């Protein structure tokens, strides 16, 4: 049955290949796709490798040093006057404010103990007798 069907074909009227046109093989369409996929894959592998490497790198600063305590930042208290008076910008008041601040620093820095000047400890007792 199958052989008969083949034999009955009209071989003369089979469609011809147009002149100047080459029939491209199916693999030729896949080549750019393969290049794109391989480049994409390589980039992906590189990214993953970088991510893995960074996570294991102990010198990475972004993760912070483990075991080294850092001081807790203490918020500095700043006086904020929400409703200022007409004297808030008075030059004499501002001058006094600066002077009082400077005086405050001076008071804080003053060494009131003078512990470095305590008299020296000296051994005055000298004897040459057997105990």
């Amino acid at each position, binding site marked *: 049955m199958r052989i008969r069907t083949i034999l009955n074909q009209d071989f003369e009227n089979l469609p011809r290949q147009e002149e100047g046109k080459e029939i491209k093989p199916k693999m030729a369409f896949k080549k750019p796709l393969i290049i794109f996929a391989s480049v994409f894959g390589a980039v992906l592998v590189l990214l993953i490798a970088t991510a893995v490497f960074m996570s294991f790198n102990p010198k990475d600063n972004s993760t912070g040093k483990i075991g080294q305590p850092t001081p807790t930042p203490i918020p500095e208290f700043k006086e904020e006057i929400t409703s200022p008076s007409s004297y808030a910008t008075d030059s004499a008041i501002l001058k006094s*404010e600066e002077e009082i601040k400077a005086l405050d620093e001076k008071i804080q820095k003053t060494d009131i103990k*003078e512990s470095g000047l305590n*008299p020296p400890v000296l051994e005055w007792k*000298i004897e*040459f007798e057997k105990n």
Partner: protein
Amino acid sequence: MRIKLSKIILLLFVFSLLVVFGSLTVRAQEFNFDRANSDYLYNYNLYRQSFNEYVVAKEAYLKYETLTSKTEALEKTRQMLRNQDEVVKTYLTALRLKLAETSGISDYEQNVLYLKLDSEIAWFAKHQEEANSAGTLEDLVSSAQDGKDQYQKTEVLVYGTLGAIIASKETALREEINQKIKELKDKVGEIRLKGDKNTALAERWLLEAENRLTRSQEKQFAAQQALSKIKVNNSKKAEDYNKAQFTFEESHQYLKDANSYLREVIREIKSAD
């Protein structure tokens, strides 16, 4: 020709005098408290070393009782005593320079302390010479005893001087705060006269600041009284001095309070009613 030569010689003489005088002035300027304190610490270190050597030489002499060990003990003891006197001299010099650099002390009090400190330095210089000329161990033992007796007096002077230095610092700070109080009082008075702001709270802070200054003065006076009670025969001089120092610290705390109240006055003036 002869006149020219004499002129040149005269000029050279004047120039050399100026150079010598200038270098002496520079040297004198360089000798400040820091330098004197370094000298004192250096000499104290030398003293500690010589004291250890004295102990070793003494032990050797007591053990062997030979002429060599006795000579060695004599030399080491003499060296230790010389260094001990040098420590006291350099310490007192440092203290004197500290006193000179401290402001707020009256000229009279400063001069009296200078005289006393100089007298002590001279005593220990003389004592050092005596130690140099001591020929026997007995002489050195006697010399050390003299030094011990004198150092009892020196300690009283030292604590008195330290008290004067601290008190003068406190007095200077108190005067500055007092000046600020006066200025702010005038300003608050002006504002009250204008009548565009209520000054009651600012005036209250000023009053509190004045009270703190008075308390500070009282504490300072108490500390000075305690220092004046330290006597030569007192066996707990250092303890008494520490107590007085604590009272000075209390006085200082009142100064801090007074100044913080002045900041409140400024805040109050700058804020609207």
